[in-house]
């Protein structure tokens, strides 16, 4: 039997038959895997250690004939324990896993694995505000989905002016000059950092980041809704 090994992050677990569970896992090199974990539904195995949420594990599995393989073994590589020590960070973690699972219905590349891994690392760092992690995550999903907005020239093709105010056009996916626009240079620089893939802790260190998040988050959400 051909056994394969990789690192994996669990996305979901569900029942299968009387004694088994199906795990949906995200990997950097095998995309999304659906594996049967045999016998783990026996009473004392539930909620036992092994593959835990908010963890990266080293797994060994066997490919099946269809889209389902069989999990052979797991070894915990990194567990982000601080996440479950905060109720709001725990809930955010589950929510972001669910968002990523939904965003990766087709076979995802390694970028999505690294995105989720970095998300766990950020959630685990209690100095990084949740609002920044949520915003950053939304920006990465847009970036990986090819929906990054134009942050360098305005809708007319002119370079963005550091002294100007702007509003955002969803149709053009770009900023347009507007005397009473909500967005200024600070917002655009902040968005550039996020869309460039800088980690949340970098965004958290930007001066005035709390206020910047308050203005930028609705914009990013509007873009995500527009492209969905």
């Amino acid at each position, binding site marked *: 039997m051909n056994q394969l090994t990789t690192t994996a992050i669990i996305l979901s677990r569900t029942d299968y038959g009387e004694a088994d569970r199906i795990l949906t896992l995200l990997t950097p090199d095998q995309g999304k895997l659906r594996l049967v974990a045999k016998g783990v539904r026996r009473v004392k195995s539930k909620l036992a250690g092994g593959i835990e949420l908010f963890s990266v594990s080293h797994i060994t599995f066997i490919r099946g004939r269809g889209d389902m393989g069989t999990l052979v073994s797991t070894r915990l590589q990194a567990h982000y*324990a*601080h996440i479950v*020590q*905060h*109720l709001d960070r725990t809930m955010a973690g589950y929510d972001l896993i669910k968002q990523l699972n939904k965003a990766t219905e087709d076979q995802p590349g390694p970028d999505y694995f690294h995105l989720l891994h970095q998300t766990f690392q950020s959630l685990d760092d209690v100095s990084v505000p949740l609002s920044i992690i949520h915003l950053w995550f939304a920006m990465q999903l847009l970036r990986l989905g090819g929906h990054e907005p134009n942050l360098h020239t305005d809708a007319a093709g002119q370079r963005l002016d550091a002294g100007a105010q702007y509003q955002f056009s969803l149709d053009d996916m770009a900023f347009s000059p507007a005397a009473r626009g909500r967005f200024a240079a600070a917002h655009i620089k902040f968005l550039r950092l996020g869309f460039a893939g800088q980690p949340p802790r970098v965004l958290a260190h930007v001066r005035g980041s709390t206020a910047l998040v308050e203005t930028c988050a609705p914009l990013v959400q509007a873009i995500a809704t527009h492209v969905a």
Partner: protein
Amino acid sequence: MSTMPTPPAAELLASVAEQLKVPLTTIARQAELSQLTDQAMDAGLLQTQATVALTLVDSYLLGLQLLEAQGSLALEPVSVASTLYEVAHQLHGFARTYGVTLDLTIDGRYEPVMAHRAGLCAALTSLGYALVEAQAAQSAGGRRLHFAVHRGAGGIVAGLYGSYESLGSAQLRSALALCGRARQPFTALAATSSAGIFVADTILQAMTTRLRVARHQHQTGLAATLLPSHQLQLV
């Protein structure tokens, strides 16, 4: 979430407040149950829980005093053995209500340690409350806790030991750092037990020592290393 450090006194108050919720909620619900079912209250349990609450309040006040005096705290030679006897005696009734047996082992004779007697007593008592609750909540590992003294590399080690799943040094360090900033800083234990450990550690810090994870006779627990008084005289 704020990234500004919280003053130690505020963290101490938050931890004591968390820990106080348990005995006070227990008293309220037991009184209510007695009215509901028309059965007599378990007076022994109520007395024990009330004593716990009052002791916690006193630990907080003492902790505040020690925090203020930190650096200029007057230490004195204290007998670890007699302190442990006193703490074990105080905790005995409380532990019994949780179905936990407390043992005390003092092998050999130990010289006095330099400590603040009331502070050491309060710290070990707070630790005891926390670990009795935690031991009782565990599904496996029996219901015995063990106060023990032994000689360690850095001095005389006084601690409380039991069978705790997932109790490690990294978890303790992280829990103490997150106390007051995380809803459940020590996931190995229920949140109220974590608070009790923090209270004990804060008091011990004023005596320039800290709680650490330790092992004694195949059991894991939390202990503090205290300096024997004759070593200080040589410095």
